[in-house]
Every structure is written in C-alpha cells, then in structure tokens.
C-alpha cells in the first residue's frame, strides 16, 4: 500500500521537477522581465520615504520604513512568482489540448498543482533576489531573526492557497471558455484586501475585520508580515489558518472540477 502511494507521489514529484528544469531554460527572459519589479520597488521606496519623511526611526501602524520596504519586496516576489494558471487552462480548453491531459494517468488538478509549484519556486527565488538587491542598496538589511525561516514555511501554504483560488476561477473555463475577467478581479482582490500594496494594519479598522475572514491575507500578508516582524506566537495560528483555507478551497476545487469535467465539450485536441 505504502509502495503504491510512494509510486504515485513519484509521478507528481517528477512533474514538479520537470517544470522547474523547463523554467531554467527561460531564466534570461525571466531576469529581463524582473526589471519591471526593480522599477516598481524603486517607485515604492521613493513614495514611502516621502510618506515617512525620511525618518528611519518612525514607526507607523507597527512598521518602520525599512520594514515596510522589505514587506513590499516579499509581497511583490510572491505576487510575481505566481504562474498564470488561468491562461494555461483557458488555452487548454480552447485548443482542445485538455483531451490529451485528461487521459493521462495523473490527476488533472494534481498535475497542474505540481507544475504550478515547480514554476513558482524558481520565479519566487529570482524575484526575491532582484527585489532584495534594490531594498539592500536603499534600505540595508534589517534584523530578520527567524523571519526568513517563517517566510519560507508560510510561502508553501501561500502558493497552495493562491493555486486553489486561481484554479477555481480557471476551472470555470469548462463552462465559459473565457475566464480572464474573473481572473482579473481575483488579482485585484489580492492587491487590496490581500495586502500587497499595503500591510493590513494600515487599513481602516472595518476593512481589517473583513480581510480577517477572507483567504487572500494568507497568500501575501502572512508570509511578508512574518518575514519583517516575526512573532513566534503568531506562527502556528497563521499556519493553521492558511492550511485550513487550503482544505476548504481544495474541496471547492474538487467539486468544481467534478461538475465541470462532465460539462466539458472538447473540440479538436
């Protein structure tokens, strides 16, 4: 029994590793594209320096200037690392390639999850390196303590929740074919209530209460906040909330997939 599970796992592990290797072939392209991240972070550094009036000691909503810049580096690195799963599945449905995917001896969702994680891993480290380079030169390195370890621990759950959220939207392609609009709304929700542009503490009280009940905070806010302001007491609750959302969203993904795959009409392939 254990052997069968191990063999099954090996298949999915191979998908992740192959995707990761595949991504290495496009590393120059990835580095070129990350130039935009440099520009955005440079603009944000100027903006927040103006907001803090250059006062390195000022603490606003629990964040110093240095912490807020590093928070943005981590949140942007995760955001830009997320592979465009919606566009991929939409293309598979439109082109009919999904027919080939469905007959393989691999779970459709499982295949995409491992492929997503493989691609996200390389993209995350590249964007982290690029973002850190600009933050280091303008702000220096803060005392992260155990923050970096917490960042990596929470990042696995963060990418898993992000995958589930985007997968639910992507699976609507089985009915709609066109899912870019929904994907767009999802992305914007992560920008705002997910805490990409601002840590949740900077938001009004009422909005913070709403955000606490949504899964978006687990993708960007949890890892970025813990990296810059590590709090040992919060690590376990954050992990529990994150993986709690993974379970809830996984159920939704499976239900959506099972219903959707029956409705799917494949043309070509």
């Amino acid at each position, binding site marked *: 029994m254990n052997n069968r599970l191990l063999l099954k796992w090996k298949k999915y592990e191979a998908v992740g590793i192959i995707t990761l290797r595949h991504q290495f072939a496009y590393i120059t392209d990835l580095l*070129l594209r990350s130039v935009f991240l440099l520009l955005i972070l440079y603009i944000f550094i100027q903006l927040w320096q103006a907001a803090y009036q250059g006062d390195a000691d000022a603490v606003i909503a629990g964040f110093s200037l240095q912490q807020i810049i590093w928070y943005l580096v981590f949140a942007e690195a995760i955001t830009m690392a997320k592979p465009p799963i919606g566009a991929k599945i939409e293309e598979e449905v439109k082109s009919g390639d999904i027919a080939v995917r469905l007959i393989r001896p691999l779970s459709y969702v499982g295949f995409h999850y491992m492929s997503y994680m493989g691609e996200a891993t390389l993209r995350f480290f590249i964007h982290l390196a690029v973002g850190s380079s600009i933050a280091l030169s303008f702000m220096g390195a803060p005392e992260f303590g155990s923050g970096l370890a917490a960042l990596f621990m929470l990042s696995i759950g963060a990418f898993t929740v992000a995958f589930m959220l985007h997968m639910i939207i992507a699976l609507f392609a089985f009915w709609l074919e066109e899912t870019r609009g929904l994907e767009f709304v999802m992305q914007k929700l992560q*920008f705002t209530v997910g805490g990409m542009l601002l840590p949740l503490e900077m938001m009004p009280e009422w*909005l913070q209460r709403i955000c606490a009940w949504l899964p978006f905070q687990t993708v960007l806010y949890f890892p970025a906040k813990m990296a810059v302001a590590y709090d040992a007491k919060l690590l376990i609750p954050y992990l529990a909330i994150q993986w709690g959302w993974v379970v809830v969203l996984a159920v939704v993904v499976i239900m959506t997939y099972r219903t959707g795959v029956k409705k799917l009409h494949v043309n070509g392939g």
Partner: protein
Amino acid sequence: MRKSTASGTLRYLLTCWKLNAAGAMEFRLSFFLTAGMMFINNCIWLVFWGIFFTKFPVVNGWELRDVMLMWAVAAGGFGWANMLFGNFTRVAAITAAGQLDVYLTQPKPVLLSVLASRMSLMAIGDFMFGWVIYGLVGDHSLRGLALFMLGLLISGLLIMFFTLVANSLAFYIGNAEGLAFQVFNGFLALTTYPTDIFRGGVRIILFTLVPAGFISYIPIGLLGGIQDSFLIGALGITALVAGIGIAFFYHGLRRYTSGNQLGIRS
C-alpha cells in the same frame, strides 16, 4: 490638391474609427466587460491611494485630489490614444511578424494607417474613468474643462509617441516586442505616481529622457494653476517626442524587409 489630401485622410480616419467602433459593438457583452474591468482596475488603485492618504494626508505637497486628477489625466490620455490609435502598442509585433506589408500597399500614410486600424476595448474604460474622476473632483468651469482637455491631449500624445519610439526599435534590432512592452509598462507606471516623490537625477530624467513627469505633474503644473515653464516644457517635449517617434518610424521603415506572409485587412 493638398487640401483634398488632408480631407481625404480625415475621411479615411473617420471611416476607420467608425468601423472599429462597429466591430467592437459586435461583441457587446465582451465590450462592456472589458471596458468595465479597466474602470474597476483604476478604481482599485484609487482605493489604495484613499487608504494611503488617510494615514499620510499630505505627501510632499500632494493630496488625494491631486493623485485622483493625476490618474484621471494619465488613464484618460492613454484611453483616447488607445481608442483612436490602438495599434501604437503593437507596432513592434506587427513589424516583427512582417504584417506591415498590407499597410504599405495602401494609398494612405503608413503610420496613420497602422495606428488607426485598431481600437482597444479596454481603453474605453480608461477614457470613461478619466472623465468620471474629473466629474467628481475636477474644476467644472469652462477654463477648468479646457485645461483638463489640454492635459488629456498632452498625456495621450506623450504616451503614444514615446511607446512608438520603443516599438520602432523592431526595425533595428528585430524582435523588440518584449523590450517595447517593458518600456511602455514602465512609462505608464511612472505617470501614475506623484512627481514630487522623486528627487535629484531621477527627477531630471522624468522631465527629459523619460518624460513621464510631464503627465504626472499636470494636476499641479496645469490644472492647479498654469505654471508657464511647465506648460511650455510640456508642449515642447510633446512636439519633440512626436517628431522623434514619426521620424524614427519612417527611418526604420526604410530598413523594413517584409516577410513572405500574405495578408489582407478584414
């Protein structure tokens, strides 16, 4: 003769725009969804700024109203340029794919023909957004309206011709699509942050090499009371960037070697 050529070109442009609009309205639902999405996208950025300014009411002299007008001018300018001349972001792709041939065979100015042959649906949302924000926080006097429209004109022309320069690199380096897209995205990003957060050399660059500052400073230098030096600079740099864009395109066009792809304009 010259007059009839000009009026012929204008008639041609009007026909292009009419057909583009009719084409967009063929897919009404998609049209409204796409335009609405862009509108929502811009609104979300204003939500960010709204929250930001509750924590920091004034940032280097800028208030929320200034940032809202900056977004109105940038999005509105981008909107009209992309509605009427929607191919300015795609010149590099069209060139690299050898699809310019079809425009070269027509008895109309090539650049105008290329630019006006596409209407971006998303841009209509941007254009509407500009006017809604103007309606909410702009100066509604006749003078205020005229200044806002001048702001939109400067903004649209600068975005279009700066992007055209980047796209025309395709004539010289081949596949410039990725680079042109990065330049375009970067330029747009710079038009939507208060100019006064930048200091020193970067600020000089924003008013010279990468003249995004002439768009982002419009709420202060034009709408908030005309600063002569800013207005003269903005008009001058717009004319200069337009001139460079057109010259760069036509100079590059002489190097264009076409593909062997057969194509027709539908």
